[in-house]
């Protein structure tokens, strides 16, 4: 099988949900295994081959010194490196530490913080190595993942939507929860891909796919969030699974400042790594 692309699925700090998405492609899984050579996929196989890989799907964020080195080695081993999910593309929910005192977090969770080796920050893969394509979502969408794999097998650049959640939400025929129910919703500034699920389930979008390409963050905050909640709560809306995505990070800091509770990023971080 020398002509089959060699696929690796590699994990850093994460919940495993994004690589599970590949196993959740129940109808396609065995076909994928025919189309590509699965060289390294520890969640699914104990047969692990070293690189080089044609495609590395990378889940998870960088939170340890060892992982900083591991991701560089992986980059050197991979022709195409594709990040899957909010942890790998934006640092994940664990990037909330980037706005807090890491030592405080350690003390809150562990009886013996000295046993734990962990960086004070959680950063996306792109903060460390060149990334060829980023697949958004917490978790990623199965159909987008299949599009990425099929495109890469065909030697083409994947095409995934960069529109906002609002557009497929309208096409789905969901009545706007902001207009009709007065709910807070991050749909206008969040990238599509999830299927615009939350408004269809009578709740506002909580931004699990991260900021869309050109989000108008201040208008979002001033017209949708702040009329419904204090500025500090509006900041928390942006501080979840994509908290370290630049647009969400900067706007949440602006909102914290408005609230009079400044929360600067960890000193070693800037948000211009995009």
């Amino acid at each position: 099988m020398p002509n089959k692309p060699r696929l690796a699925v590699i994990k850093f700090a994460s919940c495993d949900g994004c690589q599970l998405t590949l196993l959740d492609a129940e109808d396609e899984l065995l076909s994928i295994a025919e189309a590509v050579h699965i060289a390294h996929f520890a969640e699914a196989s104990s047969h692990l081959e070293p690189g080089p890989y044609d495609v590395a799907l990378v889940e998870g964020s960088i939170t340890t010194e060892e992982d900083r080195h591991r991701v560089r080695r992986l980059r050197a081993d991979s022709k195409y490196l594709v990040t899957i999910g909010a942890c790998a593309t934006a640092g994940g929910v664990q990037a909330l530490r980037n706005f807090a005192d890491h030592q405080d977090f350690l003390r809150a969770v562990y009886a013996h913080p000295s046993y734990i080796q962990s960086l004070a920050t959680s950063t996306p893969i792109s903060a460390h190595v060149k990334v060829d394509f980023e697949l958004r979502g917490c978790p990623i969408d199965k159909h987008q993942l299949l599009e990425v794999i099929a495109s890469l097998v065909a030697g083409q650049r994947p095409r995934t939507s960069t529109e906002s959640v609002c557009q497929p939400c309208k096409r789905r025929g969901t009545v706007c929860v902001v207009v009709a129910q007065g709910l807070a919703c991050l749909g206008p500034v969040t990238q599509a891909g999830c299927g615009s699920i939350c408004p269809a389930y009578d709740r506002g979008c909580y931004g699990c796919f991260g900021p869309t390409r050109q989000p108008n963050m201040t208008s979002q905050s001033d017209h949708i969030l702040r009329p419904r909640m204090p500025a500090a709560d509006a900041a928390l809306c942006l501080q979840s699974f994509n908290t370290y995505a630049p647009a969400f990070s900067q706007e949440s800091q602006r909102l914290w400042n408005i609230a009079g509770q400044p929360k600067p990023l960890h000193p070693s971080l800037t948000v211009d790594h995009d």
Partner: protein
Amino acid sequence: MTDSSANQRLIRVPVLTRVEGEGALVVKLDGDQVRDVQLAIYEPPRFFEAFLRDRSFEDVADITARICGICPIAYQMTAVQALEAALGVTIQPEIRNLRRLIYCGEWIESHALHIHLLHAPDFFGCASGIELARQFPEQVQRGLRMKKYGNRLLEVLGGRAIHPVNLAVGGFYRLPPRADLLGLIPDFEWGLQAACETARWVAGLPFPDFQGNYDFVALKHPAEYAIIEGRVACSDGLSVPHEEYEQHFDEQHVPHSTALQSRRIPSGREYFVGPLARVNLNRDQLSDTARRVADEIGFTTPCYNPHRSIIARAIELVHAFEEGLRWLKDYCPPPVPRAPHTPGPGGTGCAVTEAPRGLIYHRYQVTDQGRIAFAKIVPPTSQNQAQIEADLRQLLPSIVQQPEAAIALSCEQLVRTYDPCISCSTHFLKLRIERGG
């Protein structure tokens, strides 16, 4: 921040450790004498309990889902029930039925995944479910289809299969249209038969001869196979309300692992949670078909062979399809999707449920403003971790003469029977043997 439960243990702060990812096994030998065994889980810590603080109670289900992509419902369900206890929210009976239904969906997808893609390959020398599918295409495809129907239920009722969006304190954000649930009935009728076939298949697997001396711990409920509530029971006779969980089980931080190890109080003994514990304790309350299949394949309890957990898991798969079918057929939407609740007064509440891989415990303290002041989350794997180490300690003397690859494989297979979250990386063991003496 202090955790001043009645046991007066020194561990005063909650510990949450995520254990998916890689672990390592360190075996220290003195000649062929096993001196020490350490199962090290070094998944980087993610600090969930720390960053839940000061968030609204409404955010907790969405955030805790992200602890595990394979069993998000377990984290969401335990969180919302603990918060309901803290806030004094009473749910409607129809909501309770829907909760059992969606939990059945998670059991189905998780059990079908573990049986067919993670565990069964071990019995045939296969590296993966994909490789196993070449030998057993019908069985693996049947497993994938069952898994798909579990996921389909999570999508209909939860919005999506991984990190569902529909669970809320008090109930659901939106109730499913009756037609959507009725539409799943043919799939579940097929799934019930398929799960019976799977149970017959796994009953014939070549099981290694290994017997542990276990304290099985699971929820026990007077009227049902316990999933979302019950007393915390142990095979040695312990039976306590879930509010007393922390008086009987304690997490300890060991140097070699980012995951905590739970032990019993006061004995310090390890214990065993998961499908084998549940079936051992509650066999009589399984659904009719599940009980009949268990009889037919000769699965008797008590069963102390952890390798046979795959049978317990398959029997629970039958149960989950049959119970799921019942709720699908009986579904009658309650008047409102969730019980109303107003801010304050806050309080403390805890809950225990049965994740696919075992008992899970949450406790929250909520302020009058509805903010989280304190969170403690005990996942199943941290409870099984000490038991896994004890099993390895028991197994190793009989295999230390073998080549190291064979030792690693035997250890790995034994650990995998527990379906710990680290088992999602099936090749999780890096064996290091230190020979002294």
